[in-house]
């Protein structure tokens, strides 16, 4: 019942496969959404609360911009670098947004980028100190759930400790964050990469295959 109603709703609303979003805002005020992009596609990852974009979504329930929304053009421009500049600098934004969501593509871009960080993280990983478990914040390993037993453990900068083997699988393959407090284990690499690649102090952070920025 629910999905059928949804289809009818979509066909009622949809002439064509995209819709128009217009935002007017004062100079220097962000529109309030984050995007991820590569050479071919510009996708929305998040809309921030109490921003012009958030207000637009509230006022236009049938033309909302959400995770996975595909921005096709900005102020008539279809080339990605020009679209970014328009999003960052213009006070009057006219965006053409595709009606279908590219959530799978976006998930894939994010996970592909995660994999690309690994070699860098390995260097950082090898520099993490081993400590006696008595000196650490926690008394058991949150990955295998075993209590520490008078042994040497690997300590992260946030002082949370884990068995070396347990945490290595996580940090080298999945994430750069502490499983317990979510702190990034080493963010110097982030800023370093951001500078090296964008080279202009912009807030874009290089992500191996795609970039993200808030506009």
């Amino acid at each position, binding site marked *: 019942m*629910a*999905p059928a109603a949804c289809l009818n709703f979509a066909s009622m609303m949809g002439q064509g496969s995209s819709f128009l979003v217009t935002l007017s805002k004062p100079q220097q005020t962000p529109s309030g959404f984050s995007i991820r992009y590569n050479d071919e596609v510009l996708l929305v990852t998040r809309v921030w609360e109490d921003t012009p974009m958030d207000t637009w979504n509230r006022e236009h*329930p049938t033309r909302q911009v*959400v995770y996975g929304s595909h921005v096709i053009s900005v102020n008539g421009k279809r080339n990605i670098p020009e679209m970014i500049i328009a999003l960052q600098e213009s006070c009057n934004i006219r965006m053409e947004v595709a009606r279908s969501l590219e959530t799978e593509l976006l998930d894939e871009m994010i996970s592909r980028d995660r994999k690309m960080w690994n070699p860098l993280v390995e260097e950082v990983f090898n520099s993490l100190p081993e400590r006696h478990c008595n000196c650490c914040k926690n008394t058991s390993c949150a990955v295998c*759930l075993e209590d520490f037993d008078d042994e040497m453990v690997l300590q992260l900068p946030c002082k949370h400790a884990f068995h070396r083997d347990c945490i290595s*699988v996580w940090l080298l393959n999945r994430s750069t964050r502490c*499983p317990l407090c979510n702190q990034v284990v080493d963010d110097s690499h982030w800023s370093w990469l951001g500078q090296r690649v964008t080279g202009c102090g912009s807030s874009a952070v290089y992500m191996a295959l795609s970039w993200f920025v808030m506009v």
Partner: protein
Amino acid sequence: MARNRLNKEWKEVQRNPDPDILLELDGDSFEQWRAVINGPQESPYEGGRFQLKILCSASYPYAAPQVSFETKVFHPNVNFNTGELCVDILKTDWSPAWTLQYVCRAVVSLLRDPNADSPLNCDAGNLLRSGDLRGFNSMARMYTIEHAMS
């Protein structure tokens, strides 16, 4: 790793059961689990009992478990047909420090606080986004009575 860790979780669940969550092994491998969660009070799901299917791969706990509703539920973040659910901690925000019991608690919170921003059920999402809380509650209630209270 997955097996030892799940064995530990299994013992812990038996030692400290959560009154709102029944979590059990489904079959004799540690791969498949079944949970029954109570719909949160003061929500349209109150009084309902919702069954979840939980699958843990060999990469657990580094990879999040796959969780889906077996009971039909009308909720913006649950696919009405497949029971698939959309919650950050099972996707981008997963941490290996979380357990299956924690995941079940997160699903209970999701029932209590639906997030209309990432809808898997557009009808439920649209009702909430347009501010039609009454409409949403009555639909959710209707499905709870029909599917989760028998």
